[in-house]
């Protein structure tokens, strides 16, 4: 019945805008009414659990929650880059950006009704199958339910206003339309923050009596639990990558089914933008993941140990495989994409080295510290641990290679971006503003790198439960931060005297040598001599890499501004395997989201609310990875199948023959976001 309702909603989305809104409103009213009534129903229940037609309640909630989460990630992720693309369209006055932003939003609008319906279904399932637990959660969070419901209205109204006012709010009203897009993102982010607080509370409860679990009266204290913000940051970034790759896969399917060159060119470009967005989000994602993992450990050492050294440590091998596919796949797609850029032959030869580095890095990332071995196997490798591989399984090696992966991917993208660029314009021609911007960027890096260096130089060993003599190990990372600051200003100085590429190379080399090699090796010393300090080493590595990325990006923007274009981009001239790469990336990130949802939820083991409310149902055990893989695989199949259906429905209303206009050669070249401030030149640089 619920499925019919969801399909009905989606069908009306495709055919008539007004009825779509009504459908959504109906779902939203049902949802809100249920939120208000259900606590009363629940109070009448005495049983803690109900079976779902004599089957597995946990499985039902798992599937529905995961599907809701996936649709939610898409609905929250896409508007972030849709509005940015629209803004670029406004700045460049290039209609194709506006058209692309609208196409992204069309997908969003179709998926929104589904996320609402799935949200309602999830609430029904939770209150129906886990009444006591939901009673408890409602006691703590019921005030936030109302805020959530109201925000859901705001999100819905704003979304439909944004989508349906696209044609009306053009020209001088464009700014107002973009504001609606920004507002949509604000509502979405706050909605996510509220829902995250419920999930993170279950992992790291606060605002309650630690002994009895009774609510102390402040909803805010429960919302502001230790994992709330770390989880929100991780999800926010992951949602962007998720949205980018799902939209990329949509474009890939459309490309494969296209019948005209114009369609292929358009969907090739759309797929490229989706992949670009995903790479931009994937680069900081490991840092956000590390932060979340660290906070999980801080919130509960038992949970943290179980995550990295217990039952769930195996699932991180699967995670590493999936992340490996994402990074290598995204790089491979860029590599193929160079084939459509005249002039990029100069750089293609380097890409294979980048891919070799990536493969080796992922092999290291995948290496477990140890595995259960038979006596014969132990004898064969000379003990419980392999003499060399044991080092690769340690955290320090993994931190080093993650940073190398990020730097390599970034380098790969730099090569792609300059594929069709020739002679550059002298830096002085960009004016004083360019100098000021670079100095401000350098100054900001100086501030945050310098502040952390100061923190390391004055760090109290007792704060890490270390003896005072361990302070001697804190200086080297601080010194490397100072060297990084020096390298940043050297790179900026070289850019000022028209040696920008040398400056970029210097900064990249210094960062790789310090953050990857230097601190990677030093991390082993720290693990032996001052293990708690390893987290500070990881933060140091993160800050150095992120500063390097920021500075090089800004240098690159000016370096290739108005540069000679030696060849055009032949949009649409991509082999079929490139589109299958985009589809693989989409499947992988959806699998990854399913896997991480399982890990996050599973870490609570047999607790509904960790350490407070025990799960006494018959499903309170951690299943095998084989079982998890089947369930997650099934959920991903359901999600991809249903979203393909929703996208198909959303296209039913399109007029026949309304296929995209051909893109001009060179259109959309380079980075759509970073390069949005300029229009690519086809006939060499402008000279004054």
């Amino acid at each position: 019945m619920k499925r019919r309702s969801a399909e009905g909603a989606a069908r009306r989305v495709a055919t008539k805008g007004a009825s779509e809104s009504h459908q959504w409103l109906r779902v939203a009213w049902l949802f809100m009414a249920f939120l208000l009534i259900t606590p009363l129903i629940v109070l009448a229940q005495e049983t803690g659990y109900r079976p779902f037609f004599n089957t597995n309640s946990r499985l039902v909630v798992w599937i529905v929650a995961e599907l809701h989460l996936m649709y939610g990630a898409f609905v929250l992720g896409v508007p972030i880059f849709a509005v940015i693309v629209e803004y670029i369209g406004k700045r460049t006055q290039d209609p194709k950006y506006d058209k692309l932003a609208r196409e992204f939003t069309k997908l969003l609008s179709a998926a929104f009704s589904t996320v609402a319906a799935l949200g309602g279904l999830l609430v029904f399932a939770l209150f129906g199958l886990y009444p006591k637990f939901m009673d408890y959660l409602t006691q703590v969070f019921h005030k936030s339910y109302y805020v959530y419901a109201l925000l859901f209205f705001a999100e819905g109204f704003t979304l439909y206003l944004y989508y349906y006012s696209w044609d009306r709010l053009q020209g001088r009203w464009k700014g107002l339309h973009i504001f609606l897009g920004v507002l949509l993102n604000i509502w979405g982010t706050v909605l996510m923050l509220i829902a995250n607080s419920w999930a993170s509370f279950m992992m790291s409860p606060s605002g309650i009596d630690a002994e009895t679990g009774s609510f102390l009266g402040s909803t805010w204290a429960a919302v502001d639990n230790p994992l709330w913000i770390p989880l929100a940051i991780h999800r926010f970034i992951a949602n962007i990558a998720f949205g980018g790759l799902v939209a990329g896969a949509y474009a890939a399917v459309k490309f494969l089914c296209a019948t005209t060159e114009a369609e292929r060119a358009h969907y090739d470009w759309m797929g490229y933008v989706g992949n670009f967005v995903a790479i931009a989000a994937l680069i900081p994602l490991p840092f956000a993941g590390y932060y979340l993992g660290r906070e999980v450990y801080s919130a509960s050492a038992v949970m943290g140990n179980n995550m990295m050294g217990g039952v769930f440590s195996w699932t991180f091998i699967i995670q590493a495989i999936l992340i490996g596919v994402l990074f290598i796949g995204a790089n491979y797609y860029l590599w193929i994409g160079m084939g459509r850029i005249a002039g990029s032959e100069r750089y293609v030869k380097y890409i294979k080295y980048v891919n070799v580095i990536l493969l080796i890095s992922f092999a290291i990332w995948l290496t477990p510290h140890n595995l259960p071995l038979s006596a014969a196997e132990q004898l064969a490798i000379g003990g419980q641990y392999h003499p060399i591989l044991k080092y690769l399984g340690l955290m320090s090696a993994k931190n080093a290679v993650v940073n190398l992966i990020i730097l390599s991917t970034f380098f790969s993208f730099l090569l792609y971006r300059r594929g069709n660029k020739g002679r550059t314009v002298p830096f002085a021609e960009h004016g004083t503003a360019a100098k000021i911007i670079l100095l401000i960027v350098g100054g900001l890096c100086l501030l945050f790198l310098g502040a952390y260096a100061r923190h390391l130089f004055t760090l109290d060993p007792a704060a890490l439960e270390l003896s005072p003599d361990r302070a001697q190990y804190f200086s080297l990372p601080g010194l490397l931060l100072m060297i990084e600051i020096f390298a940043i200003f050297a790179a900026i100085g070289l850019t000022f005297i028209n040696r920008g590429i040398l400056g970029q190379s210097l900064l990249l080399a210094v960062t790789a040598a310090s953050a990857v090699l230097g601190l990677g090796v030093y991390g082993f010393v720290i693990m032996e001599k001052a293990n708690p300090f390893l987290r500070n080493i990881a933060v140091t590595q993160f800050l150095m890499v992120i500063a390097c990325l920021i500075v090089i990006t800004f240098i690159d923007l000016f370096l290739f501004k108005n540069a000679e274009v030696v060849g055009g981009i032949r949009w649409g001239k991509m082999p079929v395997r490139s589109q299958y790469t985009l589809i693989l990336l989409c499947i992988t990130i959806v699998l990854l989201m399913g896997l991480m949802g399982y890990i996050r939820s599973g870490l609570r083991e047999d607790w509904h609310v960790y350490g407070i409310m025990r799960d006494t149902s018959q499903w309170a055990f951690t299943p095998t990875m084989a079982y998890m893989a089947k369930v997650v695989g099934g959920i991903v199949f359901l999600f991809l199948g249903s979203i393909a259906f929703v996208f198909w429905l959303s296209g039913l209303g399109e007029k026949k023959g309304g296929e995209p206009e051909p893109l001009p050669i060179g259109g959309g070249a380079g980075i759509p976001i970073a390069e949005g401030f300029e229009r690519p030149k086809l006939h060499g640089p402008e000279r004054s």
Partner: protein
Amino acid sequence: MKRPFLGVVIFTIVVLLLFIYVGEVLTRISGEEARVEKEKARVLGGAVEISPEAGHEIFWSRGRCHTCHSVGNEGSAIRGPNLGEPGPTGLPIALRAAKRAEVRSKATGKTYSATDYIIESMVDPKAYLVEGYSGIMPVIFRPPIALSVDEIKAVTSYIQGIGGEVDVAAINTSPFMEQVKVSAAAPAPPSPSLLLEGDPEMGQSLFFDPESPAGCAKCHTVKDTGGKVGPELTNIAGQQPAEYIIESILTPSAVIVTGFEATLIITKDGRYITGVVRREDDQVIEIADNQGEIQKVRKADVKDRVLQDVSIMPEGFGEILTIKDFHDLLAFLMTLQ
């Protein structure tokens, strides 16, 4: 269905099957199936047998002991001491426990057997910390581990058997086991009854004002404000119960947080400096006194150095603070979740 789309569907199914295959392979390698069967049996209410085999199972799964402790070459965790021969003193835990029991007997004046030591280290892990390890181990009969009495007995029997003989009778008669039974069965301890309802804002002023009778911020930090002589208190109420905080104010030497033990340094020119050593290298020792002042002493000038068993936090706040001040201060500290 268009042919390219059919290709996409088949491709998707193949990738998903590959993912499922990886899950299957990892399950086989890790031997998870046996774990899950045992977990299912436990969930369905299976009785716990008090035997080393059952203890082994709990140690390596539900008890999560293996996430911090290895046993000989089994496991790879290093956060807690290895319970086999590679551990501290080079003895397996059963023999090590016998020696530690003597140490504990001397320290407490009570009679300890090896079994008592093993049980105490699980149910009151901070009572004795092995040198070089921090006190991160949770009380295993409290959430989130929350082992039952029989499960603790089973784990104890497993640990007894690591280099020693299993003695279930010694487990059953251990006074620490009795303590577990009482603690586990008892309702949660009530919150301390207070005379007054404190004003957290007044307490905050007392905490941060260096001229106030409390002036805690001279030595303690809350949200980046304050001295570094004593432990940071930014989240103290989220980490410790009210009883602990009250005890720390009134009798600061009762429990001294690791890393904040006082040290007495006697210099060659006859100066006596007592404080907490904050930093130290080959040349200089930085020591913070109980007023938050940092003094640097060259190592070459040190004549003697003695670790103290009293806190450098001043005693006597029970007399220094009025009853209202005390309750205001406590109310403020309890907001630091």
